[in-house]
């Protein structure tokens, strides 16, 4: 079967097939023959040639988490588009990095701001996070006022370049 895993904006196309109790996995034009057993639910012991890989896999709501050699990778299954997509790296965004409370708003609509200016201060877990302008521009809209609750990913301020 064909599977596409998305990890950090890259897609990995993998095919896998089970034959005679072995797994044949093809990735990047290389085929790997593996013997594998699930020791406990989600806990795999995989033999690839003379190498043993131990992994723990858990399914979340949308993602899968893979633990291999002390590192954790979060992946998603994606529809069969076959094409490797990489999202354009953003210039910097104005979204809140954390859910918390707005404790200070430094700008108002129409203000001119320079790159690096502090626009808003958000407090979460007793730490302060400064939202800085990623570029020079003019404030088009301020989406929150002091004492508002803000959720992760919400846009703090809109700035016109």
């Amino acid at each position, binding site marked *: *079967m064909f599977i596409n895993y998305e990890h950090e904006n890259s897609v990995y196309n993998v095919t*896998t097939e089970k034959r005679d109790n072995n797994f044949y996995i093809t990735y990047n034009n290389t085929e790997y023959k593996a013997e594998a057993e699930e020791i406990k639910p989600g806990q795999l012991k995989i033999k690839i040639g003379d190498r043993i890989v131990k992994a723990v896999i858990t399914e979340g709501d949308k993602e899968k*988490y893979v633990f291999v050699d*002390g590192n954790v990778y979060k992946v998603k299954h994606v529809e069969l588009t076959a094409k490797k997509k990489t999202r354009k790296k953003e210039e910097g965004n104005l979204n809140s990095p954390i859910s918390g409370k707005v404790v200070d708003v430094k700008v108002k609509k129409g203000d001119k701001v320079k790159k690096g200016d502090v626009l808003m201060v958000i407090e*979460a*877990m007793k730490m302060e996070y400064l939202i800085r302008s990623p570029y020079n521009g003019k404030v088009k809209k301020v989406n929150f006022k002091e004492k508002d609750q803000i959720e992760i990913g919400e846009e703090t301020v809109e700035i016109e370049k």
Partner: protein
Amino acid sequence: MKVKKESMHFLRKGKVNGVNKNMFKKVLIANRGEIAVRIIKACQELGIKTVAIYSDVDKKAPHVQLADESVCLGDPTPIESYLNIPKIIKIAKDTGANAIHPGYGFLAENPDFAHSCNDIGIKFIGPSSKVISLMGDKIAAKKTMEKAKVPVIPGYHGVKQDNKSLIAEGKKIGFPLLVKAASGGGGKGMRIVYSESTLAEAIESAKRESKSSFGDDTVFLEKYIDKPRHIEFQILADEHGNVIHLFERECSVQRRHQKIIEETPSPVMTKELRKKMGDAAVAAAKAVNYTNAGTVEFMVDGNLNFYFMEMNTRLQVEHPVTEMVTGIDLAKWQLKISSGEKLSIKQKDLTQRGHAIECRIYAEDPEKGFLPSIGKLEKVEAPAGPNIRDDTGIYTGMKVTPYYDPMLAKIVTYAENREENINKMIWALSRYVILGVTTNISFLKNVLEHSAFKKGNITTHFIENHFKEGTVSKEGLPIDAIIALAVFDSMHKKSQDIVRYKEVDPHNPWKHVGRWRVSGEGGQ
């Protein structure tokens, strides 16, 4: 200064046949997470009944399960739960607790709480409220230490708190300098300023953060030490005037001014320096008639000069490393001291044996400036092995909420020497499974594997110097992970089948049938 002995009418003195007859019968633990678990276990070993308190989101937390009794605080907001003095005092009274252990954080260094407890005849496990107030006021603490001949860092600790005066004083001290909240701790309300141009902004921001965290916006300024190490000394002081120190803890590896890796012995410590600093720590404790467990924090510069920074009037997060190398149980001694017992350990009886490291596991993303991460822990499996201690407050299925500190667990290892111990810690971290929420485990491993760390060349700038943003390997998904996923998905094929239905006909009712069986045979 003299500290008045607080009333102890609720305890009868005396120890018969080595058994402390005054030991508390029941203790309320005013905390959550791993530290509440740690304290409950210490109580249980001493035969003390325990009362846990918990907010709505902590209903299933390990400390609740472990305690003999537990009482709900309701609303999870800290101010309505673990910081709510009247609620907690009422629960202590209602359950008949003789004492309250505050843990660390929350109310641990709140003099009003200590005072309120003792007022109604419930012993606060920690020093007196007067000592907490004095040490909580960083300016007064420094002045007291200067008088006691404990070296302090040059700075401005004055009462003029307007921006103009602070800027003028800052210029006198010179740059770089540190703006610190007078009531601060744990890096909150602290800013480093490298030039005059950013001083005003830093003062304002430190004041605001301090106001919201501690209800006080007094700040002070001090000289910023070059190549600084953070080395602290553990103190135990009984209520009969005996004070001992339990050697140092090296806590230089910090991010955002918060410790993440602690160890003892410190790689720079010499016998002579240890004696000098230990004596200074004991002098500091005696200067304020300190009682119970405490920590004297020092800044040590590149030439091994040391300066008093502050005294923490509580059990520290990193106390287990001291327990590992000394064999002394600090949490149990807190209980014994509070119940009036004399310190039976003498300074000369104590030795440091081997090497201990603690790594703090946080729900945070090192690639995104160590921002806290929240979500559900899909799987938690801690490593086990010789001399590996896992102090934890988490479990599979638990939700990490934004209400509290993002520390999930502390892993502590112990070995004959530092080199072997670093390898043991790397082994343990490589086997610590926490899935569902981003943690700093890989990052901790990268620090331990760093050649400068291995050589012991660490300062409080270690992370900013060696780990610029995104240093944690970004090479994508390794082949082993891809193979593991593919194998797992071949073994559990059902999700793929559902996708196929969807492709054929999006309105097909069968795609909703899930795992139901269609045949009548053995129907459920």
